[in-house]
């Protein structure tokens, strides 16, 4: 019988500092769902191919299913739950997915939202081809991607406009 191995880790989760003891064999996706109840983090392929488990770590996109939980120590992790403001309002990118009917079964949506959020935070203007490339690590088996690209483009244009930049 193998002796279980735990590690105490401290990290920032959706803006708050948290500390927990984690089984060293656990993925970040498992820990976020089990320990913190963050079920926006979807487990799809569990081999880093589908993007449903995408979270931001220090502002970059990562597949949390192939990221060991112990590696989150000292990092800044953000999930879809962290996008909701203090009054419970959803973010512009989430609203854009609703407005553009970019959701069908919804399983891939949180991963797409996090990949899109990373792009929106750069403040850059992306062409549709660039958006496709930047979202290429997220798979959707329902929508055919068209409405997803529309939604991201819409949120991007709104943010650029708010920042006083010319929309596409």
């Amino acid at each position, binding site marked *: 019988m193998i002796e279980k191995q735990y590690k105490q880790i401290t990290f920032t989760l959706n803006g708050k500092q948290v500390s927990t003891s984690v*089984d060293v064999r*656990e993925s970040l996706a498992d820990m976020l769902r089990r320990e913190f109840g963050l079920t926006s983090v979807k487990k799809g392929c569990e*081999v880093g191919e589908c993007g449903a488990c995408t979270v931001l770590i220090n502002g970059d996109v*990562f597949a949390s299913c*192939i990221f060991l939980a112990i590696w989150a*120590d000292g990092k800044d992790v953000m999930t879809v739950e962290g996008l909701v403001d203090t009054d419970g309002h959803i973010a512009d990118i989430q609203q854009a997915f609703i407005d553009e009917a970019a959701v069908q079964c919804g399983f891939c949506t949180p991963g797409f939202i996090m990949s899109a959020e990373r792009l929106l935070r750069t403040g850059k203007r992306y062409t549709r081809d660039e958006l496709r490339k930047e979202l290429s690590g997220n798979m959707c088996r329902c929508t055919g991607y068209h409405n997803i690209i529309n939604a991201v483009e819409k949120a991007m244009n709104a943010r650029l406009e708010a920042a006083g930049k010319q929309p596409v």
Partner: protein
Amino acid sequence: MYDINHIYEANSVEEAIQRRIEQPQALIISGGSDILIGIRAGKLAGCDLISLYMIDELRGVSLDEDGTIRIGSLTSFASVTKSPVIQKYVNVLGEAADKVGGPQIRNIGTIGGNTCNGVTSADTASTLMAYDAIIELTGAEGKRLVPIEKFYLGAKKTDIRADEIQTAVLIRPESYRGYHGYYYKYAMRSAMDIATSGCSVNVRLSEDKKRIEDARICYGVAGPIPLRTRSAEQAAYGQPVSRDTVEAFAAGALKDVNPRTSWRATKEFRIQIQGELARRCLTEAINRAGGIWA
């Protein structure tokens, strides 16, 4: 939950070497985009791991005083692509790193892992070999430098000794100054796919841009390890920038490639692709070098 027996974490190179000596059975994990998948598939289930992921001193790209480009082994593909040093001096390496997987994989996968796993299809490996990169290994006795061609011993086998880890990939100034290159990844999809074959070429032209002074070509998936095709290079040395030279170069490459049939593609298909890759990569490398065609 991954089926891992024990994880030994290293926070410094010294600690990693110590772990290597103490736990000779343990596998090295850097980003994990191969190892964790292997564990999940059962192939590596129950293994011991030495985790290098938290060793931040092994991240980043810098330029040494003598012009050597030093890429820390834990540098992610995305960081390679974004590095101003890479963009300025060996942009083809940044372009090759940008062909790996998708954005999420490019943030976790490392250049060290991409070479240490000894895989022929690795997108950065062929370009590093076309640049005559040097692998820096650090062990109990100190550092050891190995030319990348010698670093590959066979499929999935690389020259890492029992007390060593790979600490950097180096590119010497004489390997990149005056050279221009191009990498082509041939795959079924433009993202989240492994190369059916890949080809990286770099060339140095004469001052009048009409003659090829030096050319290097390396393939992925033309053999069990990344493969330099010397017959192609010899066909290009000193030759005029012309269609005939491009054809001789491709013919030379086909003398040396030895792909196999796999579920991804047949040997015959890969040979067909590899001739064309030599043509396209040399042509584009020449164009990037400002070549004047005869």
